[in-house]
Every structure is written in C-alpha cells, then in structure tokens.
C-alpha cells in the first residue's frame, strides 16, 4: 500500500528539483509521443530544446526570438504571480494585455507623426493605465459585491477582443491602409517604435521592463512589508486580517499591478514585434503567462527561467513543425505536459511517499 504523508515543512530539495524533473519527464513522455507519431524522438527533442539556440542555420533568426517571446510572458507572469501569491486569481491578463495595447497604441497614433521623444514613454504609461483600468473592473466588483474575479476577469477577455476587432476596423484603422483592417505600422513611426535596442538580440524595451519587473517583484516579496502582506494573505487570510492587512487593499494592489504589467506588455508588443493593432494581434500571451507563473512556482527568478523555457518550446516547437512536420497540436500537448508534470511532481514538495501497511491514526 502506497500512501502520501504530509511533510511537516515543504521540502527545499524537492522545491528545487521538481522543475528539472518535470522537464525531464516531459522530454521522456513527449519523446515517446513523437515516436508514436512516427517521428525520431531524440531529434525532435533536440530541435525543440537545442536548435533554436545553436542550429548553424536557424539560430541567427530564432535566438533573438527567445527574448522577444519571453519578454511579454515574463512581464505578465510577474504581475499575475503577485495576485496568485495572495490567492487572487486574475485569469484575464489576455484582456488587460489587449487593452494596454489599444490604449498605448491609441496614444501614439493620436499624435502621429510626432517626433517628440516623450511620445514613447507616454504610450507606455497609457498602456499600463489601460491594463490597470481593465483589471480594476474585477477588483471593484469583487471588493464591492464579492463577485468572483476568475469569472469576471476571464469574461472581460472576450469583451476586450471584441473591442480590439472594433478599433482595428474603425477607430484606429490606418487611414492610408486602403481599407484593410489594422492600424498604422509603428515600424514606420520612429518616435513611437519599440525597436531592438541591441541589433540581433531581440532585446527591446519590453524585455528590459520584464527584467526590471523580476527584480522589483523579488525585492517586494522578500524585503518589503507589502510583499509580506501579499504572501500572508495567500497563506492565511484570517491571519492577514488579524495582522491588519486590508483584503480590499490587497485585491486592488494585486489586480492593479497585474493589469498594469499586462497592459505594458501589450503596448511593448504592439509598438515593437507586432508593429500594429490588428484583429488578431493578441496571441495568447496572457493565458500562457499563467502557465509560466506556475512553472516558475510564483517565484520571480523562477518565472524568469520559466518564461525563457516556455519561449524556447514555442520557438523550438515551430521549428519542429517546420523540419519534421510534427502536427501543431502535438507541440501544444508537449507544452501542456510540462505543466502537468510540474504539478504532479510538486506533490512531493509537501508530501512524502510511505510504502507499507496502512495504519489508522
């Protein structure tokens, strides 16, 4: 008889090795899946994890993509992780990301074609505010009426998508775009363009912001009393209230921060790699960031690594589709496995296995 026994304290060893173990198990089971699909498993794994960085032919293109893809994932996941730490489940980062993009791009396009260098900072602020305002809707409803932030924030994603479709066809449509939906392209608007800071690296302002967010969140959670209050609220809400932490304040803080970072990520994306507002400009970063946050175990440094890993599987996955003809769905499965195995191995952080006779205690 095998049973799980709760550890008195979470195991530090297991906390450290479960992500590695999860990656390893994903490689094994994923490789098995690729083999069943009739593709060479080792090669597929190599293409996903190795080739994007070191392939002689493709790496020059795909290496910068790593930061381009990881940047928004990390930025959004950091914001989400603070809420998750406090037990506030903002599932609607995708919507906040879209609203940030719309507001930030709107700010830039309103002053087209200015050359004032302040336009880009103004767009960043407008983007962050847009995401913040969108996140305030579930926050206010939760504090005022006790609604469930999971449902409200998630449903607001679809509202945001509808708004995105509307503005890309009407309000923000490129007047010189010959009637095609979509805004002006920021690549032809130098003052507002979020270009590469160092050529060939993929580094843009959004990636820099993501790194800064990692440092900020790390300091907040480990050194600052508000970070302590956030963790306390998540660990023991009653103890937090006893301590004097106002639940409403934590809700506003966490949802607001998450929304602002997601909004800023949207702006960085629309003014940089994406280039313009289009109907399908959003690509699911807001949802993938939830996985990244948990893969990084809600720890800022962990999220940094998880974001890079997730970006790698995206780029590698595309490469594998291209080179081996793997079906796209199998890549998604592969990414899903990563989260699945992480959650599965995570059990051992808090529990240990006992093999032997059961004993009623």
């Amino acid at each position, binding site marked *: 008889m095998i049973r799980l026994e709760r550890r*008195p*304290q*979470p195991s530090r060893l297991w906390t450290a090795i479960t992500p590695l173990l999860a990656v390893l198990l994903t490689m094994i089971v994923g490789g098995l899946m690729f083999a069943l699909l009739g593709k060479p498993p080792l090669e597929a794994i190599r293409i996903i994890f190795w080739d994007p960085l070191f392939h002689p032919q493709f790496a020059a293109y795909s290496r910068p993509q790593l930061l381009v893809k990881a940047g928004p994932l990390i930025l959004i996941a950091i914001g989400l992780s603070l809420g998750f730490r406090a037990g506030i489940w903002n599932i609607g980062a995708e919507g906040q990301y879209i609203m940030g993009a719309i507001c930030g791009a709107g700010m830039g396009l309103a002053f087209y074609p200015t050359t004032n260098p302040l336009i880009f900072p103004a767009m960043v602020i407008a983007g962050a505010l847009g995401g913040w305002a969108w996140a305030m809707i579930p926050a206010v409803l939760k504090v005022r009426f006790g609604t469930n932030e999971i449902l409200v924030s998630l449903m607001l994603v679809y509202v945001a998508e509808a708004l995105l479709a509307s503005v890309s066809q009407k309000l923000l449509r490129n007047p010189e775009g010959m009637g095609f939906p979509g805004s002006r392209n920021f690549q032809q608007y130098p003052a507002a363009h979020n270009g590469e800071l160092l050529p060939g690296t993929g580094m843009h302002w959004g990636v820099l912001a993501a790194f800064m967010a990692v440092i900020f969140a790390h300091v907040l959670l480990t*050194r*600052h*009393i*508000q970070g*302590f209050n956030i*963790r*306390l609220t998540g*660990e*023991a809400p*009653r*103890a*937090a*209230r*006893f*301590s*004097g932490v*106002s639940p409403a304040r934590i809700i506003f803080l966490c949802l607001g921060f998450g929304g602002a970072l997601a909004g800023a990520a949207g702006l960085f994306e629309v003014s940089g790699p994406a280039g313009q507002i289009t109907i399908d400009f959003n690509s699911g970063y807001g949802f993938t960031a939830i996985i990244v946050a948990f893969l990084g175990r809600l720890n800022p440094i962990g999220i940094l690594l998880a974001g890079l890993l997730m970006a790698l599987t995206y780029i590698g996955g595309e490469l594998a589709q291209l080179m081996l003809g793997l079906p796209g769905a199998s890549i998604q499965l592969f990414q899903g496995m990563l989260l699945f195995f992480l959650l599965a191995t995570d059990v051992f952080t808090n529990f240990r296995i006992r093999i032997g006779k059961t*004993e*009623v*205690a």
Partner: protein
Amino acid sequence: MADTLLSLRGLTKAYPGVVANDDISFDIRVGEVHALLGENGAGKSTLVKMIYGLVKPDKGEMTLGGAPYVPAEPKAARASGVSMVFQHFSLFEALSVAENVALGMENPPKTRDLAKQIRDVSENYGLPLDPFRIVGTLSAGERQRVEIIRCLLQKPRLLIMDEPTSVLTPQEVEILFATLRKLSAEGTAILYISHKLEEIRALCDHATILRLGKKVATCTPADSTARELGELMVGSSFASPVARNHASGAVLLEVQNLTLPAPGAFGTPLRGISFSVKAGEVLGLGGVAGNGQDELLAALSGERLSDPGSVTLKGTDVSRAAPMARRDAGLLSAPEERLGHAAAPAMSLIENGLLTAARREGLVSGGFVNWAKARLFAEKVIKDFDVRTPSPGTAAGALSGGNLQKFVIGREILQRPDVLVVNQPTWGVDAAAAAAIRQSLLDLAAKGAAIIVISQDLDELMEVSDRFGALNEGRLSTIRPVAELNMEQIGLMMGGAHDMEVAHVA
C-alpha cells in the same frame, strides 16, 4: 467487584522518532471508574486507540474478561464490549438524534423502536434527550449525550471517555457524573481521560498517570491532593501563580454597548456588551464555546469594526480603528485559533513574529522589513517563553500546539501591551507550560497592563482573574469579583438560556 475486566501488559507503540507508549501495564476492574491522566503528548490517546482497536501495539498484550483481546478494528472492539466517546463528536448536524444513532449501528432497528430504546436509556441514566430533535439544534452537552447514548445502546463492558467535560457547563458536568456513577454501579467500567485533577478526584476510583509515554503510577485519586497528582503528571513541581496585587489603576479599556451582527451563518452576534478593565487587573470571561468569544476578540482586535464610541482605549475611541492602529495605541490580542488566525502555518516563526510586531518592535523601516531584527525578536520570544523549536526559521505549523501557543502569547506579551486580550491562552498546552503562560499574564498585569482572558477553562479563570463575567449567546453577564463567586453561581452565569435541565437519575 474486584474482578479484573481489562488487563494491559507491557503495551508498547513507537512512531518514527518517538515512543508513544513504553511498556505500559495496568488493570481496569469491573465497574470501576479508572482515570487516565497525563499531559498532552504523554501517550493517553495512543493508549486508548490501542484499546479501541484503532492502532495496533508493537508489543504487549491485553486480556478482556480473562480472554486474550486483540481488536483489529473498532468494530471488533465494540463487539467485545468496548465503546468510546471521542472528544470531538462525529455527528451529522442535519439529521435527527435517532438517525445519527442508527448510522453508527451494524443493524439498526426501525426508527420507532430505536427512538423508544433511546428514550429508555436516556431516562434510565438521567440524560434527557429527544430522539427526534435535529442535532444541529443541540448544545454541546446534548450532543455529547447523543454520543454516550449511542455507546450505551451497545451495552458496553468498558466505556472510554476522552476529556468529556471540556465542553460542558458545571451543571452539565454534574449530570454527566451522575450518569457515570450509575453506570459504574451497574458494573460498567469507565476509562476516563482528563487532565482536570479536581474532576478526577471527585469521580474516579483509581488513576493511572502517564508521562512521556511511560506509566508513572497508579494511585487512588481521592487519597492524593490535586497538587500531588499534578506533580506526578508533570514530573516536577511547578510554580503556582503568585497571589495577585489587587491595587488596580485607571480604566484602560472601556467597552460600551458593543453590538455586532453575526459574521456569517455560523457566528454569534454580539448583543450590547459593556465592561471596563483597569490597569493591573485581569478580567476573566467564561462561557461555553461558540457564545461570542471569537466575535468579541475580533471586535477588540480591530478585525471587525463596531459603532463609534463602543470601544474606548485610554480615553480614545478606537472602535473604527484598524488592527494596526489599535496595536500602535497599545491594544494587543491573541486569538484562540493558532493555525491560520493567530499564526500563518506555512510561514516561519520569524515571519509570524512580524505578523503583529512589525510596528511596535520597529521591524519595518521605510516599508522594508529588517529581517535581522525580526529574527532577533522571534529568538527572544522563543527564549523567554521556552518555545521548543529547531530554529526560528521553522514553519509555525510544524510546532506542537502548546509550543505554538507559547510563541503566540509570548509574541504579544513581549510587545509590552497596555491592554491584552487573549482567547483560550492555554488551550491544548501542557500543565507546566500553562502555568508559565498564566504566570506571565499575571506578571504583565502586575506591571500595570489590563488583561482580558477569554477562556472555557473555569479553573484557569478562577486562578488568574480578579473579576469574572460569562458570555452567553453574545450577551455578557454582570461582572463580579471572583472572590465572591462559587461554582454554582458561575454555572448560572454561564448557563443563561442554555439547557439547564437537572438530572433525574432513576
């Protein structure tokens, strides 16, 4: 009457890292009330679990009525005539008494027959109970009767009772004792687990005392003083609290007509509570659990805000002030529920020190936590209050209940409060630690703090309080000096609208 019913020989049970029971032998005779006495962690629970078939001994044997007795599971124990009333009831609130009793039976009779049996037993043993009442409407004392009757219907030869009086008013205790004496007179042996020494002296024929898993003595409690029993239990003499200094000073905390609706479906509303506490004074608030204790603490700690003017601290109205502001002003508190309310289980003791001491101890400057200082504070609490923990970095949830309680109380006392409110300060704490906690509360009062002790342990309240009041359904009785009170008056103060039926022992 001198026949041995249950005989234990060399029972031993080890868990990883601890020997819970080490070579325990004693006899329980037919019809005797046998006390099992010991501190928390002395091994009482493990021992009765072995007798009741919940745990298998590593070594040793038991005989019941002369025959070898090896219960594989509680069902086998019940079939052999051993029943147990647990400290925590396992009843379905939405079902009636009879339905609850039927659920525990192998082959329940028809409800009507069962109801008749329940009535018979309840009349026979002086345990008034209506078989068709819904359990959710019963008081704790009445619920316990359901459990007892459930056992009695099986006509046990040995009835095990685990701390049965912890939830009862003094009157209910009397009813229970009358029942137990009658059972014993009819030949049912009772194994009575408790750490309330006076009770054991009043009720039990013999007592076996356990300490750290070993049997220390079997004695006749009526021939020993409570102090002797207590010292056997603890293994060393412990200091009784020093007599208090009655000179009290100015009023520090004044509560005026404090009224609050119930928080949620299971809470109790507070109804017009008024009292005041002076410097140097200890006010004891008794009452059966669930009569507004938690709610009163929340209203005083600032977790719930009350109408302006209802809570006044040193002349300043703090009824609308948040917990932090009240702490700044000198009003500190320690809730009953240690895990999840007074402390966050998954967080370290250092972090749990920060939980209430952040501002008063200057552990935070400019919003940033000074972890070195926080560690020093936690270490000081651990040292001054003898908290047994591997390190201050250990998670609060990994500590034993008593040690965490010492930490929680110590954390507040070391912040030098002007007014301290504690709820169940020694709940689940062993006798020596409880004495230490009570002493530290009295010391704090002697230094001029006003203290409110909310507790269900009357002995404790009598020991530490200058004045006593009781909570009942969210109302507070008149507050009277402890010196003028006797147990009966206290019972009436606590009882209020509670079930006050007197036993009619047939």
